[in-house]
């Protein structure tokens, strides 16, 4: 596999050059009116550069492909128009874009979401068009955070799944591992084309081993038994009430999650025009499953908490046989107001033996 060497002095020049052909997205520092600072993924304005110091973002970059609120269809309500009340697709910009500095687990997460939105029978056009238009330029995680357990969940600090390029920070330079042709095209557009020498591959492997060890030295999350458990044994297990006790049923875990894909459709009218929106939804909200009849099959919070973990760690695994629908980014662990820790829940599920 080819490795390109990018001198950090040439980084901003190359990024600027790439803007000629790509819309860029990346993590930037955001400061609110009370001077609180966060890093967020957003579209980079001219002259704005992604922060490449391996920062944690509260929200995952999924919104680049799957915005929290997205206009999808529109129609006219003006009955004098021949096409009134006919929904038509909103014209969004799907020109080439690149996400710079996305982490490996987040890129893998998007491949999992893709399984849901791009199937043999159905293709969500909004997701598919955006996903296909995007080049993912990842940044390997040299120093994993305390809540990163990605190696347990089929990803890792240097994982390549879902990425087109993997950048590895090596002091004065980035070593760019070219993973796909799409990635090569981006690097060419940025003018990054100096092939690294033989030692680069070894250097990347060393940094990878070091980062993976940092994660492995912490508590391990077991997933090996999940597949062989029966759905009903886990569903009826006695531990759900205890896990759910502290839950306040907010949507934090699902909104910060890079793999949560559920959405709600809303129509809004203004004057003579109607717009249809696709909004993130959350299985933590009672309204998520409220039927028109008033009946709610998940009316109690334990049922909703169970649904979230069963979907992530069991139903998805059974349906696709592609591991869990958790990539171990640790965002929900970090942000949950009541410290419900998916690492603990996963271990409880994985180790559960029903009483016969």
């Amino acid at each position, binding site marked *: 596999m080819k490795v390109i060497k990018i001198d950090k002095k040439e980084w901003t020049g190359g990024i600027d050059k790439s803007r000629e052909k790509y819309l860029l997205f990346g993590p930037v520092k955001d400061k*609110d009116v009370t001077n609180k600072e966060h890093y967020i993924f957003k579209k980079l304005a001219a002259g704005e550069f992604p922060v490449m110091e391996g920062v944690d973002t509260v929200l995952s970059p999924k919104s680049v492909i799957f915005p929290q609120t997205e206009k999808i269809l529109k129609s006219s309500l003006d009955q004098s128009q021949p096409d009134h009340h006919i929904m038509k697709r909103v014209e969004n910009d799907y020109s080439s874009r690149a996400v710079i500095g996305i982490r490996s687990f987040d890129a893998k997460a998007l491949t999992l979401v893709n399984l849901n939105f791009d199937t043999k029978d159905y293709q969500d056009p909004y997701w598919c068009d955006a996903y296909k238009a995007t080049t993912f330029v990842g940044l390997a995680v040299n120093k994993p955070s305390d809540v990163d357990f990605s190696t347990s969940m089929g990803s890792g600090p240097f994982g390549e799944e879902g990425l087109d390029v993997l950048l590895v920070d090596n002091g004065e330079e980035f070593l760019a591992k070219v993973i796909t042709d799409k990635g090569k095209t981006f690097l060419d557009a940025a003018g990054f084309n100096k092939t690294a020498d033989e030692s680069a591959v070894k250097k990347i492997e060393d940094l990878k081993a070091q980062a993976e060890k940092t994660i492995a030295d912490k508590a391990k999350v077991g997933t090996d038994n999940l597949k062989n458990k029966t759905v009903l044994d886990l569903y009826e297990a006695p531990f759900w009430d205890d896990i759910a006790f502290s839950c*306040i049923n907010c949507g934090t875990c699902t909104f910060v999650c890079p793999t949560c894909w559920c959405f*709600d459709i809303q129509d809004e009218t203004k004057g003579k025009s109607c717009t249809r*929106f696709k909004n993130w939804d959350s299985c933590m909200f009672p309204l998520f499953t409220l039927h028109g009849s008033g009946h709610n099959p998940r009316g109690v919070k334990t049922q909703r908490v169970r649904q979230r973990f069963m979907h992530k760690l069991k139903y998805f695994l059974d349906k696709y046989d592609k591991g869990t629908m958790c990539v171990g980014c640790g965002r929900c662990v*970090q*942000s949950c107001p009541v410290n419900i820790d998916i690492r603990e829940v996963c271990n409880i599920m994985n180790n559960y033996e029903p009483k016969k």
Partner: protein
Amino acid sequence: MDSLTQKIREIASNILKEGRVDMVIGFAKGTIPMTTKPYMARTPEQVENFIWDKNCTLNLANYITGRKEKIGIIAKGCDSRNIVNHIVENKISRDQLYIIGVPCSGMADKHNPDELRDNCATCTHRNPVIFDVMAAEPVEEQKIDDPFADVKAVEAMDKDAKWSYFEGLLQNCIRCYACRNACPLCYCPTCFVDESGPQWVGKGQNKTDIQTFHFLRAFHCAGRCTDCGACEAACPMDIHVRAFTRKLNKDSLELFGWEAGLDITKRPPLDTFNPDDPNDFIK
């Protein structure tokens, strides 16, 4: 081990053993630094999970709403005031509760652990106002010269500056509703933003809809908010939502001489009529 933690466990264990309560609600240690989690002990063995430290930032009154059991609850000053609210608003009866009061010297700021969080720095009710037993001697209450200096600064802004400040405060809201759901006051069976037949508020990231949620929620807490800070402790985006509730707390104090949750015999000012009301419009 911390003596307060020790004492809490001892009291909790005793009331469970004596059968005075079915459960005790307190805090357990979190799995990451500077966190705790609300925890319910049903057996004397489980009380060993209780801890007390500078990170017990949520409000446990949120966990007793509408419960039918006999409940032991660990309450710092603000939790106790919300318990009073709950009793006044008929969300729980006094007889159901065994309140283990914990004098509080303030909780740590989640980003600057050496400092007190904002609401604790101006708190004047650190000792529980209602309890069955105290886990320690009361602490000295703080004397704050100007507890609402922050609100006054906003009041002093001109109209445009004020509005852009409000917009700025809410620009990062993701509508996860953690603020609402962590709040003991927010117990409506269906929140107005969740009304679906018909729907009252748009559901997307439209800023007017986001502002509608926050402003209305704040007004709904007028005269009831204890400034416990659970909303901000819960917010994943670090939004200063108390900017809104604090203005209403200041108004409650100035207009009605009222601080929420101090007396189980008194109803909140917006919930009652008083012939001596200081405002002319109501007479």
